[in-house]
């Protein structure tokens, strides 16, 4: 069986996502005896989290140890079910702080509200022990807050949550799936993934009808983030022919993929645009040497020979694949000018199969759609936009967030069809047009 099940627990030699209380994220490789440094959140030994299911949260203890904890990292103001919120409420009680009905008496005096200085916090960090540093500091911060009792309960909780995000030494380990990898790059360098949002990625995968066993023709300028998302939906069966515009493809993001290199090598074939469009000139002429000739070679030369041989086989296979055509989808995520790119690639797409093009700007896709309306090989060209609007999700205080990430990109979708022969078509179109006009005049 080629089916590869998605991992559900932390395993060695995988990459996973670490979520911090600050909402920061980090990619970590699970290497035996590895130590992960999370800056002010502390350090831990990766061996300690191996075997735990994804989604598990931990608290960092002394000597790189961790303790699994229940619930999420930082509590929403309303999550009264969770232990750490109970703790938090106890904080407030035990500190004997009062709260105000309204913020009427709250006067903004800026930094002066906090009597604890940065130096004192630094000293606390050094003197307190291990896991309790965070709580100790938060405790002190509240006690030293001049206006704390003037705040409403809601704003006290908000304050506490902010401080937890800053000081609690906790983290959650999560699967590094396609959405998470996208999110990682969106935060680190959105241009790398052409500003694609998670909702655009989801829509792309659905419109392209991606599934195990498919043969997809792909242009991916995101360094492999899209290729990884396709592999994730295919889970071991099917094939990708990735067309790229340089001598070698840029698949730098694939190093974070949780598919083994052997799986990627088997499923992902690459070919450059020149080889793709002019296959016959680019085929590598190759003749195997005889066994005797090989044996007579020096070892360094022998290695060179095999490298060249593998390379030739790989290129010629990819060329054969391109020539064969009939791909189950064409997926383009590129900054090349898409109207001409799509036109040049249609011939390689199988009948009734989708063509999906992503661009971070609407204009190239508008042009693609205008061109497509003249192109009888493309049916129902459509330009999609999808945006996810997040809400503050607190019972009784539901409202859309005041700010959200902009951008997210656009998708063009059409279906590859085979138009009627020229002669028949002209008649067909002419009469059809009259017919529709007639129909409309009857309708109206």
């Amino acid at each position, binding site marked *: 069986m080629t089916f590869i099940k*998605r991992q559900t627990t932390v395993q060695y030699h995988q990459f996973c996502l670490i979520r911090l209380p600050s909402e920061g994220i980090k990619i970590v490789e699970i290497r035996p005896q590895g130590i992960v440094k999370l800056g002010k959140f502390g350090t831990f030994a990766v061996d300690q989290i191996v075997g735990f299911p994804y989604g*598990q949260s931990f608290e960092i203890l002394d000597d790189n140890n961790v303790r699994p904890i229940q619930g999420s990292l930082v509590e929403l103001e309303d999550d009264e079910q969770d232990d750490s919120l109970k703790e938090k409420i106890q904080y407030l009680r035990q500190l004997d702080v009062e709260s105000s009905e309204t913020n009427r008496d709250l006067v903004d005096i800026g930094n002066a509200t906090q009597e604890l200085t940065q130096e004192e916090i630094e000293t606390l960090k050094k003197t307190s022990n291990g896991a309790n540093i965070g709580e100790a500091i938060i405790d002190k911060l509240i006690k030293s807050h001049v206006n704390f009792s003037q705040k409403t309960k809601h704003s006290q909780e908000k304050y506490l949550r902010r401080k937890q995000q800053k000081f609690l030494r906790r983290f959650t380990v999560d699967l590094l799936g396609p959405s998470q990898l996208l999110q990682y790059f969106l935060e680190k360098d959105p241009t790398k993934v052409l500003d694609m949002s998670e909702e655009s990625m989801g829509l792309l995968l659905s419109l392209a009808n991606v599934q195990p066993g498919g043969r997809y023709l792909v242009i991916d300028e995101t360094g492999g983030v899209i290729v990884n998302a396709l592999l994730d939906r295919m889970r071991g069966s099917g094939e990708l022919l990735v067309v790229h515009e340089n001598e070698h493809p840029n698949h730098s993001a694939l190093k974070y993929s949780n598919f083994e290199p052997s799986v990627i090598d088997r499923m992902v074939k690459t070919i450059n645009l020149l080889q793709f469009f002019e296959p016959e000139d680019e085929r590598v002429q190759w003749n195997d040497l005889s066994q005797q000739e090989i044996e007579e070679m020096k070892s360094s030369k022998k290695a060179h020979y095999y490298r060249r041989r593998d390379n030739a086989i790989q290129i010629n296979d990819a060329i054969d694949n391109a020539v064969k055509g009939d791909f189950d989808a064409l997926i383009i995520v590129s900054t090349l000018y898409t109207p001409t790119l799509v036109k040049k690639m249609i011939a390689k797409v*199988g009948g009734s199969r*989708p063509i999906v093009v992503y661009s971070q700007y609407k204009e190239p896709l*508008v042009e693609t*759609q205008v061109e497509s309306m003249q192109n009888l090989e493309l049916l129902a060209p459509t330009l999609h*936009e999808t945006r996810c609007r997040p809400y503050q999700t607190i019972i009784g205080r539901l409202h859309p967030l005041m700010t959200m990430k902009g951008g997210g990109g656009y998708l063009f979708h059409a279906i590859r069809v085979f138009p009627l022969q020229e002669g028949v078509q002209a008649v067909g179109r002419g*009469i059809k047009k009259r017919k529709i006009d007639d129909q409309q005049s009857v309708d109206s």
Partner: protein
Amino acid sequence: MSFIGYKDTIGEGDLVLAFLGRDAIKPIVINKEETLNTRFGSFPHAQMIGLKYGTQMASIKGYGFIHLLQPSAELWTLSLPHRTQIVYTPDSSYITQRLGITAGSRVIEAGTGSASFSHALARTVSAEGHLFTYEFHEPRFLEAKKEFEEHGLLGTPVTINHRDVCKDGFEISNYDGDVKATSVFLDLPAPWEAIAHLSQVISQDEKVGICCFSPCIEQVSKTLDALKEYGWTSVQMVEIQARRWEARQQMVRQVDDAVLRLKDVKRRKLEGIERKRRFYAEHGQPRDEDSEQEVEKRKELEKEETKVDRTEFNPFGRGLRIKDGDEAFNWIKVSKTEAEVKSHTSYLTFAFKQATPSSTT
């Protein structure tokens, strides 16, 4: 199977989507005795057999045509018979992506409704995974079941149940083994009643995601209470706002050309006045005693001698039939949203549940 896997050529018994237009996609099952009759003409099934999927087919009379498409979950969403409000692709694709549903996933869906999302989920979980779908309305259940059967999805990967999950929970008898769902999708009037029953059927070994799909904010409120009560965390409600853009071409009409045209209009107007003046100077005012014939003759003559020639200056092609993109003019490519956009489908409330600690040791 038509929704999972691919096919190149149309054969007897295949489900084919006859594409008449964007809003007219007709599902047909190929039976060589039958003919598809549409407003674009008649199309005998027998002539479809052996054609490649994607072929444009002319009607028997030679005028009018349709496209013959292979069904996919997304096309099915556009063509299916509506039994209920359906989940459209922008929502379904996002839910799938955010819950991390993929080949091999085990998904609970309640209710089945028109089975639009069911088809997309079946495609994505594929033969390696499973979709457990529940419908409490009997006629809808029967229709959906028949559909899954006809589409080759029943059994693998779809199991459908006639059941009110809010009252009776999710445990089923027509499936051999545990449900062990890894993702849950609730599209019910009262999802909070169903949430209570989930703990028996979701996987305990891994993180499980849920999405509740409700049009009203009051429903979301109650759902949040229930999610909290049953230990779901990382709760977030979102809304998907999707639109389709329509591309057009707009003629570049320069203001200087508009000014020049006004000048041209003015020049021609003055020219007309001048000609009139000359005509009257030459022929004088019409006289009352002129016969009807003479009046008519004078009218003709006046028309002839004061006529101003059609202008050569017509920068915007007024009065001509100009096709969008005509090379004699300049164009920009523009876009606008459809005349009517779906401004609200439903609120999507996501939450997750950690694996239980006992299974981690």
